[in-house]
């Protein structure tokens, strides 16, 4: 947005130094250019969040089943199961809201997390939870969570039903859980 205003200012400055017809021509071209220019990339800007955003996600009153997966780029079993979550997102995105919560360090957002998300072609929502004081929030996600990842939380906001799984899920296991929650 800022960039466009900037371009516009330059364009106006140039235009005033030109004869009128040329000026109009430039204006038309400029407007056309602005209209046709590709919008700023919608590529997954992985949003960095604090715990309150996660809490909101866990408690919001949505019609969709919330599937929240905790992972990190350094966690091999996590990486193995990510495609299963991506597939749920693609196939059942209307009924299920998949959120992938990265626990990578926030200072590795641009060096590791964003390139990883792009490389894997993840289109499900990816958030980086920047809360290093782990002991202050792990129990609030689920009291049974010991803190190892991967971990997955499935919530039906309408019934309040929750399922928390610590450890790697096989694709069939994840699909079975989703089936139970969506039937």
């Amino acid at each position, binding site marked *: 947005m800022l960039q466009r205003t900037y371009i516009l200012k330059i364009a106006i400055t140039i235009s005033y130094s030109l004869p009128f017809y040329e000026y109009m021509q430039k204006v038309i071209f400029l407007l056309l250019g602005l209209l046709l220019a590709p919008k700023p990339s919608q590529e997954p800007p992985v949003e960095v969040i604090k715990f309150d955003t996660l809490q909101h996600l866990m408690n919001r009153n949505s019609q969709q089943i919330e599937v929240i997966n905790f992972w990190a780029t350094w*966690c091999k079993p996590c990486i193995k199961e990510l495609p299963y979550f991506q597939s749920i997102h693609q196939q059942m995105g209307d009924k299920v809201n998949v959120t992938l919560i990265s626990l990578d360090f926030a200072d590795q957002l641009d060096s590791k997390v964003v390139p990883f998300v792009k490389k894997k072609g993840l289109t499900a929502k990816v958030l980086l939870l920047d809360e290093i*004081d*782990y*002991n202050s929030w792990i129990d609030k996600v689920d009291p049974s969570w010991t*803190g*190892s*990842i991967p971990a997955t939380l499935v919530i039906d906001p309408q019934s309040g039903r929750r399922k928390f799984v610590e450890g790697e899920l096989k694709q069939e296991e994840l699909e079975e859980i989703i089936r139970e929650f969506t039937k």
Partner: protein
Amino acid sequence: MLYLQSAILALLMVLPGADIANGLKVGDQAVDFNLKNIDGKMISLQTDKQAKGYILIFTCNTCPYSVAYEDRIIELHQKFAPKGYPVLAIQPNDSKRSPGDSFDKMKKRAKDKGFPFPYLLDETQETTSTYGATNTPHVYVLNKQADETFKIEYIGAIDNNTRRAEDATKHYVKAAVEGLLKGQKVETTKTKAIGCTIKWSS
């Protein structure tokens, strides 16, 4: 909204297995073991007759969170071993599933980092399972009793900032051991932290 929250809370409270963590708990007697150190010698809780207790840490080569804590683990040993609370590091991962944690790789890592404490391999994973360690690094602070057994006084994380030691504001293990040295009750006896899963043999 509030209704939903309390409903969830109520559900969590009645759910059986909300506290499913198996293994030893704070206050339990520590179970002894006999594990091979990187120098080939077997080590148990009774090996060091001078020990007033131990800082038992389940940790490994391959977990970035373990690696992030290596220098802090060395520091804990240097600070507390002379006072009778040495570090005993136990590598819990199955080396078939995690080749970077093989006995040879353990020797190499210990040499490269100059570990001043024993680095033991739990080859059968029995000790890891008995203690209920779930992630790395996972600490158990033990204190010797009058009858020569050891009691578990603290289970959890080293401090509250994995990323940067300087930014930690709560030093759980240090506080626990310092408390024990003063003959005080440990205040924070249990904490949780994000860590790597234990790689169990299939």
